[in-house]
């Protein structure tokens, strides 16, 4: 019996690019960009942040500093995961004190990753303002967290999940809804 998952394409490559262009415009218009820094959450958030930074740079002619956060060491379920996960790169370019920081991630779900990212970011300094930008918001929050900039809002049923693919890691740019097939 095949156990292939059912996948529904929500955004193809050009759809994701359009969504990112809109998000870049929103971020540019939503506040000052002189002190803007984008921080991507490992791993796909990092790639999306790089794309947003280059879109904003093209539109404004200004280099946007871009960093990355790996929140593994700040997870609240660390005691429950074994073996230990591989830790990615955390790199914050320069001092974040007084900056406008936009955290970028692929999917917003429980909000626990964002909470961990906020805690980690605070160990680097005190930004003037922190915003959250996600490509897909799928609901299902377990913490009071909301995004300022959302590419796509998805209604998700029981057991379904939203997957973002980026060319750097997955050989394509897309957002899909994956439903596990019924057993048997």
């Amino acid at each position: 019996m095949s156990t292939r998952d059912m996948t529904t394409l929500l955004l193809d490559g050009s759809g994701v690019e359009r969504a990112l262009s809109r998000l870049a415009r929103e971020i540019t218009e939503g506040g000052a960009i002189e002190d803007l820094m984008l921080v991507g959450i490992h791993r796909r958030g990092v790639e999306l942040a790089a794309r947003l930074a280059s879109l904003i740079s093209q539109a404004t002619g200004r280099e946007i500093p871009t960093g990355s956060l790996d929140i593994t060491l700040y997870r609240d379920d660390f005691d429950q995961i074994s073996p230990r996960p591989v830790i990615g790169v955390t790199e914050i370019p320069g001092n974040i004190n007084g900056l406008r920081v936009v955290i970028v991630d692929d999917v917003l779900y429980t909000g626990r990753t964002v909470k961990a990212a906020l805690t980690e970011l605070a160990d680097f300094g005190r930004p003037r303002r922190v915003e959250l930008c996600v490509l897909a918001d799928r609901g299902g929050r377990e913490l009071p967290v909301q995004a300022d900039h959302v590419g796509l809002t998805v209604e998700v049923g029981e057991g379904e999940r939203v997957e973002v693919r980026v060319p750097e890691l997955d050989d394509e740019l897309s957002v899909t809804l994956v439903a596990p097939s019924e057993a048997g």
Partner: protein
Amino acid sequence: MNEPRPEFELGKDLVGLEGLSRATITGILDTAEPFKEISERAIKKVPVLRGKTIVNLFFEPSTRTRISFEFAEKRLGADTVNISSSGSSVVKGETLVDTARNLEAMRIDMVVIRHGSSGAARFLADRIPSNVINGGDGQHEHPTQALLDMLTLRDCLGRIEGLKVCVVGDVVHSRVARSNIFGLQALGAEVAVCGPRNLIPYGIEGLGVQTFYHIEDAIEWADALNVLRLQLERMETGFIPSLREYNRVFGVTQARLEKAPRDTVILHPGPINRGVEIDSAVVDGPQSVILPQVTNGVAVRMAVLYLLAGGAPGGAEAAKQESA
């Protein structure tokens, strides 16, 4: 979201590098990489070991290793207690196991042990459910020292495989030498030892290492020298005639290094006896990576603590059931 670690086989404890696979050792070194960055932050602390209690049980004097472990523990958010043999119940005749069981009764999670007897770390690891990390036991192993040596070599030469590394000096009494031999060989390096004949263990060729009895030959051969500290008490016990003679025959000097066919990388586990096993000019020279070794020591120990904390699946639980 994070992929599981491939072929990783670290158990409850880190007693030595002997028998660890290439994948496991490489995994520890790779895990150390992201931990380097934490020590560069304004706030040098992550909460990953929050609530864990770690005991540093040091039966031998140590400054660098103990402080390095303590920084690593604190930067991961753990609570630490230091116990040294002087000023503890050890001087009142308590056995190692009784000391450890009493600590267990106070609900600790991990023990870092430094002990004068070879095998002390294994002995303890087999008897308590806490994770045990060997901080040096007798003449057996000092795994975290070898790991930081390898991380430093990899940083400055880009690889371990195929490197020629020579351990120089008092090899016979050295746990650092043994751990380096096991670790470097697992990663595909060639290892040699060099020193006076009475400080090279009989039959060490059986470990697959070359031996040199002239420092000039070692320098000619090696990409890197790991210069061991000459323990000064060796002179009193008759192993060497005088410190000055040792320096004249086996000292790593600028003049000797200048004849090397390449820029030999110089490592030293410390503490250094300047002018005995190594000259001041070499210690402070451009080929020395002695201080990067110290910096890497904290990152490597953070990685080991991170990987062991909570234990491998079933590791700590199995030990608890055995001891119950």
